[in-house]
């Protein structure tokens, strides 16, 4: 906190303090959460958050559902990048049952997850633009996002909540149309993305607006257990993909962009650079995509093909066992983390061998770092609070579980 801001805070006369209800349905919250701001003029003196407006009891729900039916719940955590959540959950179960996943599946997962990361960051950054007043910056990336949705549709049939992947692999292989669309995406996306980038990244007004808005120091970010782009914007290069690689991330060459001040501009730029790095990863993974099966040999967990179920006794038994949740599971506690759109998305699973998890806790990065928001906006104008909120990318579904 600079001396200037400290002076302002001290000078605040209680008679001049106004209370503003910032949310739950304020246009800039993009989701539903409430901030009660105490302001002196335009300067924020303190704020109080209320969350839980779309609490949906994911963890309780997960205790009632067989493992393969939990994937749809994970979709709705961070719905901007649901495939990462799906695949993260599947990898947690795979870790519990201890299975080797074919290299091809791992590479396919990397491609899908990085596509999801691009989609996630595009939403966040375009919304920063909207909150800064540049409405057009929302429409360009959204046209590109539609192409990612089309790729999802090829893989799963759904656009947003994809329920993509199965325990042990994918529901289907990359289709010819997927190949074609991915190739054209890789060709056209960089140009469109740089167009978007040139709209904001070096725009004088945008830079003035975002620099110094909602800064957080590396120490505080660490103490608040930040993760993902927000932590990296503060200058710490912690990335689960590198720290504890999963799904063959160690095979790929990419850099972790870091910021310096942890302010809105750094967060924006870190996300922009991560999109470029994700593209690089996709290109590498796609170029080196190994031959092989699109699923692991895992009859206990992977549903057999429908035609087999009708004609083959063994397949029918497996089908029955999987659907009825009769599969035997190891007892144990697993923690598995993936680098979600917003940071370390962890699954802490306690299995008692039953058909449903005994306890499943989601480590939701949004929930953990959103508590730092009052500290980040203290002493700043309301306009900066708006930008800070959109730049830390709080996704209500992930926040409230």
């Amino acid at each position, binding site marked *: 906190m600079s001396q200037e801001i400290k002076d302002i805070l001290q000078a605040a006369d209680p008679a001049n303090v106004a209370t503003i209800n910032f949310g739950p349905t304020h246009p800039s919250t993009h989701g539903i959460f409430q901030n009660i701001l105490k302001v002196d003029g335009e300067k924020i003196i303190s704020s109080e958050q209320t969350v839980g407006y779309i609490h949906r009891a994911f963890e309780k729900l997960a205790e009632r559902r067989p493992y393969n039916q939990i994937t749809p719940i994970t979709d709705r955590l961070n719905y901007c990048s649901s495939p990462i959540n799906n695949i993260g959950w599947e990898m947690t179960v795979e870790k519990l049952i201890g299975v080797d996943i074919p290299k091809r599946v791992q590479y396919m997962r990397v491609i899908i997850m990085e596509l999801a990361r691009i989609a996630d960051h595009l939403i966040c950054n375009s919304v920063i633009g909207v*909150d800064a007043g*540049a409405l057009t910056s929302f429409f360009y990336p959204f046209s590109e996002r539609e192409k990612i949705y089309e790729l999802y549709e090829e893989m799963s049939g759904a656009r947003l909540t994809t329920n993509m992947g199965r325990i042990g692999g994918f529901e289907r292989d990359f289709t010819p149309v997927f190949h074609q669309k991915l190739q054209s995406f890789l060709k056209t996306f960089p140009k469109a993305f740089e167009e978007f980038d040139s709209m904001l990244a070096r725009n004088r007004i945008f830079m003035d607006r975002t620099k110094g808005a909602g800064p957080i120091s590396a120490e505080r970010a660490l103490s608040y257990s930040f993760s993902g782009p927000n932590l990296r914007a503060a200058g710490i290069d912690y990335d689960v993909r590198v720290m504890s690689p999963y799904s063959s991330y160690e095979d790929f060459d990419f850099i972790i962009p870091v910021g310096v001040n942890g302010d809105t501009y750094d967060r924006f730029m870190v996300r922009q650079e991560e999109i470029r790095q994700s593209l690089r990863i996709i290109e590498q993974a796609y170029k080196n995509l190994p031959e092989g099966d699109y699923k692991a040999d895992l009859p206990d967990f992977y549903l057999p093909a429908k035609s087999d179920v009708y004609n083959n006794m063994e397949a029918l038994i497996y089908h029955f066992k999987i659907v009825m949740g009769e599969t035997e599971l190891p007892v144990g506690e697993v923690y598995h983390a993936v680098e979600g759109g917003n940071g370390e998305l962890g699954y802490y699973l306690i299995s008692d061998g039953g058909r449903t998890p005994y306890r499943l806790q989601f480590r939701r990065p949004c929930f953990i770092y959103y508590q730092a928001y009052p500290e980040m906006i203290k002493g700043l104008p*309301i306009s900066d609070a708006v930008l800070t909120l959109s730049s830390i990318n709080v996704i209500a579904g992930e926040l409230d579980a």
Partner: protein
Amino acid sequence: MDTALLIEKSILVLLLFLVSLGAAAYMTYFERKLAAWIQDRVGPDRAGPFGILQPIADGVKMFLKEDFIPAKADKWLFIIGPGIAMFTALITSAVIPWGPKLHLFGRDITLQVADINIGILYVFGVISIGVYGIMIGGWASNNKYSLYGAIRASSQMISYELAMGVSAITIVLLSGSLSLNDIVTQQSGVWNIVYQPVAFLIFFICALAELNRAPFDLPECESELVGGYHTEYSSMKLGLYLFAEYTSMFVSSAIMSILFFGGYNFPGMSHFSGNTLAMLGIAAFAIKIFLFIFVIMWIRWTIPRFRFDQLMHLGWKSLLPLSLINLLVTGLVIAFKNGWF
């Protein structure tokens, strides 16, 4: 004052009123289409062919929407606010010379409601009343967001009127008259923009701020203040605010064309005379106005908005000194030319 003049002026006033309102209504349509074009979309196209009935649909809907006055609002001020905004936006156009003299029914008709010799002063006077509409409306709503919008609007307008006024004075220095008609007539050769590019830039930026248009749309910025000063307004009261905004945009485009781009003058106008000249003059003026409106909208859909302190910073620390220096330089040059030293 003879009866014919009275009739002539009445018709002119009525015409002007309708043109301003019609222009404002269709500017909303144009803005939506332009935004759609910039954003790679289609824009309104369901209401009538190409959606040209869209403004009418909006208008009818707003007229018949429930008229709502919040329980704790100051009722009278709440009603007066939009009225003031609309009134001031409309009466500014009274001093604008819309074209050369028209010769009809054996009379020379001046296409100007009132050629008062202090035209510029009148314009500034009226514009500075305009802010009261927003201030009163925002305050009377008894809503914090509205109040913030009102405060922002008033301080923004006061700050930018200074630089705007100073840059207009340079034009007055050049032409030696406060009458808008004189200023236009003097530009029949070279337009003022050639002598005063800096003053034009300052004036244009300030005009954006006065109009509450992006990047200076802080009084109503959606992402921070929900609706700003008109958060609590519904139905036609909101409609009046929106109308006022677009009408002011129309009028200030006209004023900018008059002060810097020769008003109804156009290159090669010496080849024409009489009513042809008048018609072409009106057309040239309309085209200039249209281009200004286009640029203003273009800016809105491209650039992010300022933060409040940055806005103040720009107004007081950059534009005002710059306009003062410009005024000083202009004054010195004119003094040298007149051989006062």
